[in-house]
């Protein structure tokens, strides 16, 4: 296709990642459901992962990819514990509305 670059520049990935990150952030703020908030956080993590992989390619090093691997592992752990907490909260409150969980009010 004429006029278009052969490879996708890193900047494009970064921009995309930024947009995804922003949307995820909006989700965290907007949604009341703890579950949807969780998903939004996952989206943000993935956006960051994308930058890491993009930079890994740019600098020709594997460290970025390895870190993404760790992020995934940590995310898995986080999801497991987080969901357990949600289940526990739901048991006592019959709701996953995040605004009901405000025991930390100062």
């Amino acid at each position, binding site marked *: 296709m004429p006029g278009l670059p052969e490879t996708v520049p890193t900047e494009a990935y970064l921009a995309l990642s930024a947009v995804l990150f922003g*949307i995820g952030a909006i989700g965290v703020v907007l949604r009341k459901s703890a579950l949807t908030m969780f998903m939004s956080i996952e989206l943000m993590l993935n956006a960051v992962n994308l930058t890491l*992989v993009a930079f890994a390619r*740019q600098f020709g090093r594997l460290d970025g990819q390895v870190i993404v691997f*760790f992020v995934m592992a940590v*995310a898995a752990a986080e999801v497991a514990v987080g969901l*357990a907490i949600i289940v526990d909260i739901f048991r006592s409150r019959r709701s*996953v509305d995040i605004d009901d969980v405000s025991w930390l009010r100062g």
Partner: protein
Amino acid sequence: MEFLIFSVFAVVSVAAALLMVLQRNAMYSALFLVLIFFCLAVFYILLGAYFLAVVQVAVYAGAIMVLMLFVIMLLNVAYPEPVDRALGLLRPIGWASALVLASLVAWIAAGSPGASVARTASGAGLALGTVGVAEAGHVQEVAVTLFSKYLLPFEMTSILLLAAILGASVLARKRPDHA
């Protein structure tokens, strides 16, 4: 060709993300998230990170999302959530901040006047050559790096996962007083 694929999946992923966030129904949100994960796997392939692409599908789209869907169904909260209570100023501030953040980062990354750093870096990256990159994503190289330079973090991650398993099972355990 590569650019075309990127463009298509970029549009798809952004659209899916928006739909996910704006969706009232948790079940639909989860499904859109799965779609985003797949898009990301495609990007990883484009970037030469084949191993990660596989892991992305397996772990995120497979394990994590299945877990989430399980919970959604288990708790039966897939109904549309009620209209939000007034969050006061927080809601507009949140919107604004998120938009500013996204556009700021995107602008910087995509070659704003301030992106000279990124540009020189990308130039250097191209100079380093795509030679290494082509093989860089193969399982073997990743594995070698992971089990040599990052051995200690790797082991610590496994301990973290173990702790997460224990924590999750303790938290989700049915307690006598709740029964």
